[in-house]
């Protein structure tokens, strides 16, 4: 029995405390404030909004764990989306068959990964700061995208793409299924693969990791490549949801993904952080914005409350650490 508790503790981990408490608080407060909060409608709206932000957050998570950052996530997603859009248009637009969609998706993911590989190579070989490198990539991709689309929308996609953005399978929204599959993939990657292990080690101390015989450059390039590929998946989902692609789609998500990572207990300096708490943090953010919407608050206010929530969690975490130390001291 205690073994099960131990395993459960290990599975949940200490990072879970912040987002877990925030989750309970949000559910309690809005559950009392609005009778409609605990309903299928709330679940539905959260379930459809979560995946875009969630997939981009997963793309942000890996670089942060290495002690870096990827500021190019939203533009990478949209450049990948554009790649798919052009493949579809070249194959008849609304008439395009599933084969064209498959080909376009593979190319989109390749484009996303390439953006990551380039950033990874620059970061790994020049030791330039990831913020500067990804900022350059972000500005490059935005300019490139605006040039190619002349700042407008690309639309006109086959009808079968609709369900990918709005459809459900056995009552579960399809974007959510894609997102949860990606969360699980990232969870396995980080907890069970050599790449994931080395990602954490590099985040804590790159030189010591290199001295241990790890090819740190390869790990960094792969991390950014996977980040870019995850952006591409987000780009494909956004294409299906909006039925159009524009280079500026989801731009406001960029810093929210960073916020979600920190809310999920990820160490801003790298080395520590887990996928599941980040997932819960994302759910909390969406529940909060849906709840505020239900009680009639202005939508922009939701964003302001997100900022307050993060600040609050940081303070709580500080207090909790202090409390824990004095508690342990008293015990021994």
């Amino acid at each position, binding site marked *: 029995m205690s073994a099960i508790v131990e395993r459960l503790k290990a599975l949940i981990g200490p990072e879970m405390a912040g987002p877990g408490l925030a989750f309970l608080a949000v559910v309690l407060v809005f559950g009392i404030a609005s009778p409609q909060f605990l309903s299928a409608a709330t679940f539905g709206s959260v379930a459809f909004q979560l995946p875009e932000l969630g997939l981009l957050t997963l793309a942000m998570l890996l670089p942060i764990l290495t002690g870096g950052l990827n500021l190019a996530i939203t533009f990478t997603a949209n450049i990948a989306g554009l790649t798919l859009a052009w493949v579809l248009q070249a194959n008849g637009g609304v008439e395009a068959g599933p084969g064209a969609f498959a080909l376009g998706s593979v190319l989109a993911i390749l484009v996303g990964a390439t953006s990551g590989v380039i950033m990874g190579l620059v970061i790994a070989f020049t030791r330039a700061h990831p913020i500067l490198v990804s900022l350059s990539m972000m500005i490059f991709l935005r300019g490139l995208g605006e040039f190619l689309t002349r700042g407008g929308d690309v639309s006109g996609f086959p009808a079968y793409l609709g369900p990918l953005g709005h459809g459900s399978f056995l009552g579960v929204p399809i974007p959510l299924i894609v997102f949860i599959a990606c969360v699980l993939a990232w969870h396995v990657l980080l907890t069970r693969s050599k790449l994931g292990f080395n990602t*954490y080690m590099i985040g804590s101390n790159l030189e010591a990791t290199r001295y241990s015989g790890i090819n740190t450059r390869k790990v960094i390039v792969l991390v950014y490549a996977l980040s870019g590929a995850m952006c591409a998946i987000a780009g494909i989902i956004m294409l299906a949801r909006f039925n159009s692609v524009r280079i500026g789609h989801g731009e406001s998500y960029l810093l929210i993904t960073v916020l979600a990572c920190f809310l999920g207990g990820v160490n801003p300096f790298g080395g520590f952080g887990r996928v599941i708490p980040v997932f819960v943090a994302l759910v909390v953010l969406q529940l909060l914005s849906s709840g505020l919407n239900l009680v009639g608050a202005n939508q922009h206010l939701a964003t302001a409350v997100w900022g307050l929530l993060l600040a609050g969690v940081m303070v709580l975490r500080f207090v909790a650490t202090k409390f824990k130390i004095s508690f342990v001291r008293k015990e021994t």
Partner: protein
Amino acid sequence: MHQLATAGGGEKPLLSLRDINMTFGGVKALKNVSFDVRPGEVHCLAGENGCGKSTLIKIITGVYRPADGASIEFDGETYSHMSPVTAQDRGIQVIWQDLALFPEMSVAENIAFQTVIGRWPKLVDYGRMRQIATDALARLGVTLDVDLPLKEYAIAQRQIVAIARALVGEARLVFMDEPTASLTQSETDHLLDIVRGLSASGVAVVFVSHRLAEVLEISSRITVLRDGALVGVYPATGMTQSRITELMTGKTFDQQVRAKPRDGQPVVLDVEGLSRPGQFEDVSLTVRRGETLGITGLLGAGRTELALTLFGMLKPASGTIALEGRPVRFSSNRDAIAAGVAYLSEDRLSLGLIQPQAIADNLVISSLDKILAGGLLSEERKRSLVSRWIADLGVKIGLQQDAISTLSGGNQQRVAIAKWLATDPKLLILDAPTVGVDVGARAGIFDIVARLAESGLAIILISDEVPEVYFNADRVLHMAQGRIVGSYDPRTSSLADIEGAVYA
């Protein structure tokens, strides 16, 4: 057991501590400790890590408040506890091991920043600051460019800057915490001269060091603490290193030369004419199965560069390396590890181990392939691999998931050795394996090294402490300015011979 030294007795102490007790959450860090320092003496505070030395210093300087009943007498006044301000005002200064300096600021600012802020308006008088700094350095007989940023100077000069800062505060009692830990022999000699000068000018110095040779050289009296209790106060004359070690650890160590002939064994490493211009030249050496080859020499002799070249992290300009008869050419340390070479870094804190991460992860990082199951890392295999090594090397840990930084230096080093043994090496290079390891734990590390050699591992043991290689290696090479300038057999050479050559 309490034994009061009589050397120079009768003089009234400058600092006199009585009945000092300190408890941290139920753990008694200090038990009824008394401690006296006489004016102008150099007094050594000796003891293993965790014996209470730092706690005692922090009580004297007002960082901690001792339990009720304590008495701290300083120059005629008695206090029940100190405050940092009182300590500073009365002229008690501490130079911590990390120096607490500002690398980006100038030497003058580092030395004089506390003294030159006016009342109102709070402006800084840079001219006065430079003057104060220059004067303080002159008192130490040192000239440094006071306008240069401190980071332009090496650690030895920074140490002097820290001392100069203490003097600016009109110091009467200076604590030095491991001041020579990162200095070479000649720098250490210079520092000890400065300490003698301070003492002659009437400033009392309390010296904390792991290097017992210099403790004996510099101090007049030695106070030994063990597990938070006073063992005794001893005059330095008539003391020996092994006696201090015994007092500190409560155990007896009789160091004996472990060297044995290994001529019959097959050669594991054969290096011919290896060079990296500017770092080392024309190095040739062999290490046999079961043999421990010691390499000693001063810091900057090219020892670490040679080791990193053997480990594939630096490329030789010329020369050959052969492992078990086959020539090898490593393009990275991954090749070296695959070929059976392991390298324990001299810098355990920033290169050897990943301090914030778990003990278990640090142990398996170089042998992840061993804990794969179906292509994924297996938590169970990791745990069993770690348990095996922890038991084998006698590492004392809490949980495998605890950060490695929670362990003592000796236990960390055992984990670092285990990490490399898990890669099944043929050749293990140990670069300064006892840096930051307690005297008592050092013997344990060398017992492990001896056992590994007996099991057939070829070992290169690098250390700038000659006795370490003398007692623990089968052969000793002396490296100076990038060249091997001497080779000794500990069975036929004396320790004094080798030390004479190295420190000449």
